[in-house]
């Protein structure tokens, strides 16, 4: 069995009072609770914290934990002789058991009693994972490989951690922050309790060209100054292949040109739109001839882009 340093996880002294342990839990729970935290590994950290707190808050479990002595986290160890008789019920193998499962299971309580008596149905645990997919995958639908470590219970009700790998189909229509549910793919239920579910949280990888908001997509469309002035027709990439887009004469920078139905597909039919955001690109390397033409244009044109400054100053 691998040792876990519950005091270390909670950042408290081995002699900490019940009150100090409770306060440490609250403080860290606010930091790592997956519903409120922005920390990268919040889910994992919060699980560790919950496991440590469940053991240290209960005087009987804490006494049993203290009896295990102090080891390095992750170090293989065996409880002192007679430990399981003093604190648990009967004997069992420590070899492939998780310390957290041991405390959740061995030390009495409804869970264990229910499992043993075979009466109380206990639903399996739900799990939550983030699936990172590309925009192209969201557009077409995709399959993701998932791997979970879930507890499975033996005949005497002890949990053993089992790795479970499977593929899940994400239908087309997903977007950033979308949730999906895989019924029954969480932990196994006990005594007729239903199996837990697996919840998928979709996160889109940033794309080189497109930015997503819901099912709409946004794309920067650089135009040469003369294209914006004279109007033109340009080829624009979309997730479903390139399309031609008409640029009306006198198109301003910042204008959103809507290409209907070229966004992400929606789960129940229809699709979002693609918006091309016009930018006026200015050539940096210009030839003699180009500069001469621009000069000629400057002299010929009465266009004043800052006319409103002067109007403002005249007030």
């Amino acid at each position, binding site marked *: 069995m691998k040792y876990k340093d519950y005091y270390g996880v909670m950042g408290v002294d081995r002699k900490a009072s019940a009150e100090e342990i409770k306060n440490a839990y609250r403080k860290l729970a606010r930091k790592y*609770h997956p*519903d409120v935290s922005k920390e990268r590994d919040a889910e994992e950290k919060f699980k560790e914290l919950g496991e440590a707190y469940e053991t240290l808050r209960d005087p009987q479990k804490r006494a049993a934990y203290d009896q295990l002595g102090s080891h390095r986290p992750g170090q293989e160890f065996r409880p002192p002789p007679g430990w399981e008789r003093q604190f648990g019920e009967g004997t069992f193998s420590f070899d492939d058991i998780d310390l957290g499962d041991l405390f959740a299971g061995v030390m009495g309580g409804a869970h264990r009693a229910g499992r043993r008596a075979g009466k109380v149905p206990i639903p399996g645990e739900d799990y939550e994972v983030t699936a990172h997919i590309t925009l192209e995958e969201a557009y077409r639908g995709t399959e993701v490989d998932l791997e979970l470590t879930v507890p499975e219970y033996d005949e005497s009700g002890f949990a053993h951690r089992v790795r479970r790998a*499977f593929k*899940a*189909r994400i239908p087309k229509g997903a977007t950033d922050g979308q949730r*999906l549910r*895989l019924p029954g793919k969480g932990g196994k239920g006990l005594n007729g309790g239903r199996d837990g*579910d697996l919840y998928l949280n979709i996160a889109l990888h940033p794309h080189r060209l497109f930015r997503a908001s819901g099912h709409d997509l946004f794309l920067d469309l650089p135009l040469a100054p003369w294209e914006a002035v004279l109007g033109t027709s340009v080829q624009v990439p979309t997730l479903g292949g390139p399309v031609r887009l008409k640029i009306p004469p006198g198109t301003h920078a910042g204008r959103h040109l809507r290409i209907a139905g070229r966004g992400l597909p929606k*789960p129940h039919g229809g699709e979002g739109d693609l918006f091309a955001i016009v930018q006026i690109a200015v050539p940096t390397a210009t030839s003699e001839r180009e500069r001469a033409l621009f000069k000629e244009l400057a002299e010929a044109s009465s266009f004043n882009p800052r006319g409103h400054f002067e109007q403002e100053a005249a007030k």
Partner: protein
Amino acid sequence: MKIEQAMWLHEQHELLLEELCELSGLSERELRELVDHGVLAPIDPDAQRWTFGADRLVVARSARRLRSDFDLDPHGVALVVALLERVHELEEQLRDLRARLPGSVE
């Protein structure tokens, strides 16, 4: 390897009150309290059997976790869930604004 089909959790898929209770781990009383506090709204509050958009399951599960992990009373749960909803709305607005901002490919 068998491929598992994932189900959408969005407003167009409906869950019965009992289903929402079972999947979220909240009791019916707790769920009705969240409705009273305006945190969750059934699709038709006057309907004989309440149904909810499946996206509400995300909120209900979050409420259940917050209640048990922080030892919150129903008012506390309602307050935190309402604030989290607000945060999510603002994050969505921020995502939208960023998407509209030219030259902001991350």
